[in-house]
């Protein structure tokens, strides 16, 4: 059994493995172009595989995604699956191989199963659960959220802080001083290539990026969001955040404005690492066991239930995590009219192609 990085020529072998051993209608199986978008790296794939070279059979896979390409990069793990091979530690061997081969500075994963937390802790990683915060739009009918308590925290309306939309990658490069320490000190550090590719060239989703301009006229942070729709309603999901968190805390009124302009019934954020005070001053409420409202996470297909997102990381100091990290923002529906396989042309709503949102 050999554990090594996969070649791009082995892509179909990996997709077959996913289909046979993980999920037969997995989005990667139905939309191979998405798999390439997430994991192609020239003539290689960002996948560690455990393969019996004589049989040509794969016994385990572990995908990964780079946040940056430094000498010791920051990396998130993605799909991880092994099948019986006679080697009980094969799953752990795959993860260890990624660290050994890539010499990661940060190695983390957004969206692990609760029951597997023990495994990561045994391997020396720290685990946690992201916190989920939200803010309802006033004077709104709620079609996505289930609202039993419609109290909305007050926010200060004239902080001078503005959310200015960043319409293109060129605008991002010119508006955002990304070389500043407040951006470069992030853990993990998402480099410009990552941000441009993921948020301006995404093959499935349309993202909205907002530069946070403070009263000092400086751009100290960037907020990244996506509008989702279900049941005839819309929600503004904050999926990533870059920069100084203190800039975020003055944005409550601006977030309200954007919600109203886009007819969104609420805005939410899954996060780890932001100070409580930032989120409360932003006017957010925490979605937890004490809260009687339902702020859903799954939209493809829509499931009206609260969901916890668990994670692991090799380092907690200054560590932040958001919903778009790793592969948590991966679509489950196929978008656009790009390459699809035959199975996507079925009447099952989850397999239909959709217009890019």
């Amino acid at each position: 059994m050999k554990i090594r990085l996969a070649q791009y020529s082995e892509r179909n072998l990996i997709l077959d493995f996913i289909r046979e051993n993980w999920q037969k209608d997995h989005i990667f199986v139905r939309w191979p172009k998405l798999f390439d978008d997430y994991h192609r790296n020239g003539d290689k794939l960002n996948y560690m595989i455990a393969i019996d070279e004589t049989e040509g059979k794969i016994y385990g896979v572990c995908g990964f995604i780079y946040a940056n390409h430094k000498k010791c990069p920051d990396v998130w793990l993605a799909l991880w699956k092994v099948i019986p091979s006679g080697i009980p530690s094969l799953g752990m061997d795959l993860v260890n191989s990624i660290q050994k081969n890539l010499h990661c500075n940060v190695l983390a994963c957004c969206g692990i199963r609760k029951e597997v937390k023990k495994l990561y802790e045994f391997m020396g990683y720290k685990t946690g659960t992201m916190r989920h915060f939200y803010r309802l739009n006033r004077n709104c009918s709620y079609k996505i959220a289930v609202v039993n308590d419609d109290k909305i925290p007050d926010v200060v309306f004239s902080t001078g802080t503005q959310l200015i939309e960043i319409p293109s990658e060129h605008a991002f490069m010119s508006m955002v001083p990304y070389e500043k320490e407040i951006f470069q000190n992030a853990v993990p550090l998402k480099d410009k290539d990552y941000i441009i590719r993921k948020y301006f060239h995404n093959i499935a989703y349309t993202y909205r990026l907002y530069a946070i301009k403070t009263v000092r006229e400086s751009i100290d942070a960037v907020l990244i969001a996506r509008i989702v729709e279900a049941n005839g309603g819309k929600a503004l999901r904050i999926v990533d955040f870059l920069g100084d968190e203190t800039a975020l805390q003055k944005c409550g009124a601006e977030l309200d404005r954007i919600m109203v302009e886009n007819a969104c019934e609420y805005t939410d954020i899954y996060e780890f690492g932001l100070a409580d005070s930032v989120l409360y001053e932003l006017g957010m409420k925490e979605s937890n066991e004490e809260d009687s409202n339902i702020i859903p996470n799954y939209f493809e297909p829509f499931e009206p239930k609260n969901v916890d997102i668990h994670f692991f990381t090799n380092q907690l100091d200054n560590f932040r995590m958001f919903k778009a990290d790793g592969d948590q923002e991966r679509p489950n529906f196929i978008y656009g009219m790009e390459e699809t396989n035959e199975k996507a042309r079925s009447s099952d709503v989850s397999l239909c192609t959709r217009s890019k949102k």
Partner: protein
Amino acid sequence: MIEEKLKIIFKEIFANEDLQISYETSPDDIPDWDSLTQVLLVEEIEKTFHISIDMDDVFKIRTFGDFVQTVEKNTNR
């Protein structure tokens, strides 16, 4: 004695009182024996025998017999 205690642990972790276990028993015989159950086995074994098993050894264990030898090695220290 070590072997008997280990068999009890195996049956508990795999929730199967009728599990047939020999020195050669491996994940080929117990499909649920994967990384997660390996960790659960190690934790329970460390607790039962008051030992600490090196990570390197954890990765090398592939059979019930390997567990027996590892426990013997650690209890003879």
